[in-house]
């Protein structure tokens, strides 16, 4: 996965798992070899062959790059050729959806437009809910497909996918409800766009001053979105309350128990799960079983008992 430096140069990483031989992507692909500058790998008029993809795989290359300006073209390719193509295996479609989400959000955030992000989230939330609910996908399958680097766009995509799976198992059966949950989850960290990238990507634990800045993100996210009439109260509470804890030790309000919206309780659990199972520059990812133990240790004090029990049941099967 690319760090911020390549993104600031105008390149977006795209997973090679979403590239298919002989399909036309209509944008140039770039490659960065270890210790070298980024270079053109394949011009848009030359479709990739099976042998090309095999070679990339042999060299352990799981990402190539596109220009930021081509994000829309790549998104269209994913939607038309992968996401809605029923012959494509579910895991590839989920990977494509993750890519669409990440690229789309990067684009919206670069444009510094929270309303564009909210519109996108609404569309993508429906796609996520539709794919996850229709295919009855298990966490066991999804966990290995999702990326586990902690970057905001990867994270919101993971959290959204997890939220839909958890909500489904908690009894939310209507697709529009699941789509709402997915959308809220995609937006839950939108306030982080006000946190400087050097703090978010800092290869060490944040200082007290930096934490103070990070802790403002639920409020700034809520303030940006609260006037939108197409977002429900539950979605807004996923943004505002996903760091609240049942015993009042969370932020921004220190709300307790029933003052925390049920969707925020769902979001809180999978937010922590994804944060800990992702690698950070300063630590290795924590195994999913250990994260599950951690969640269960804080059941009733930080996290909702029923939500954790339901999630733990799914996590135990990851292996």
């Amino acid at each position, binding site marked *: 996965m690319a760090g911020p430096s390549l993104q600031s140069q105008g390149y977006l990483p795209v997973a090679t798992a979403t590239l298919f031989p002989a399909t036309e992507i209509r944008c140039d692909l770039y490659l960065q070899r270890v210790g070298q500058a980024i270079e053109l790998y394949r011009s848009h008029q030359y479709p990739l062959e099976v042998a090309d993809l095999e070679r990339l795989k042999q060299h352990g290359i799981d990402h190539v790059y596109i220009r930021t300006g081509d994000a829309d073209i790549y998104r269209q390719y994913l939607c038309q050729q992968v996401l809605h193509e029923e012959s494509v295996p579910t895991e590839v479609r989920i990977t494509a959806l993750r890519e669409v989400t990440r690229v789309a959000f990067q684009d919206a955030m670069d444009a510094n437009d929270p309303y564009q992000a909210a519109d996108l989230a609404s569309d993508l939330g429906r796609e996520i809910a539709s794919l996850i609910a229709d295919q009855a996908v298990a966490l066991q399958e999804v966990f290995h497909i999702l990326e586990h680097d902690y970057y905001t766009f990867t994270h919101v995509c993971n959290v959204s996918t997890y939220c839909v799976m958890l909500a489904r198992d908690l009894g939310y059966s209507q697709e529009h409800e699941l789509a709402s949950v997915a959308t809220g989850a995609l937006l839950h960290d939108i306030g982080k766009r006000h946190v400087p990238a050097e703090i978010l990507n800092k290869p060490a634990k944040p200082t007290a001053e930096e934490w103070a800045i990070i802790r403002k993100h639920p*409020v700034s996210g809520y*303030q940006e*979105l609260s*006037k939108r009439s197409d977002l429900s109260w539950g979605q807004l509470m996923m943004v505002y309350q996903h760091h609240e804890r049942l015993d009042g030790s969370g932020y921004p*309000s220190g709300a*307790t128990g029933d003052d925390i919206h049920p969707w925020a309780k769902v979001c809180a659990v999978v937010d922590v799960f994804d944060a800990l199972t992702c690698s950070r520059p300063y630590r290795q990812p924590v195994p999913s079983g250990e994260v599950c133990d951690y969640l269960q240790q804080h059941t009733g004090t930080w996290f909702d008992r029923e939500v954790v029990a339901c999630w733990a049941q799914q996590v135990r099967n990851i292996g």
Partner: protein
Amino acid sequence: MSQMNPEMSTCQSAAAVEHEFSLPIETPADEGHEDRRFPRFSFRSCLHATVYPPPGKPEQDPRHCQVLTRDLSRGGMSLLHKEQLFPQQTIDVVLQDGLVRRLEVMWCRRMGAGCYSAGCRFIKLPDAANAEPRDEPSGE
């Protein structure tokens, strides 16, 4: 059942509005959510208030209640309320002289069971609002 904060219970049963002014007080570290442009004064009072629904929840009716004020400045005031308040939520408070002032919630923090502290800033109230209510509130 959650236990009501005694300060709030006293507030809600108070018939008379009491005011208390004192010297400027220090900003508590845990409430430094906003830049202080004006000195704050301790202002303990129980005021009639209309709490309007937070943005994002327009279907909720405005509520008549009483709030306990804590401090006051030229820019705003902080108050206690028994329910969680949300940023950008508006509250009309009736001052002793009968004037209505409109507040916008900037931050809210739980103080104890059934008691939230909120920092609010004064915002412009339409002139007509002092003559007639903005909306027909439901009783609480």
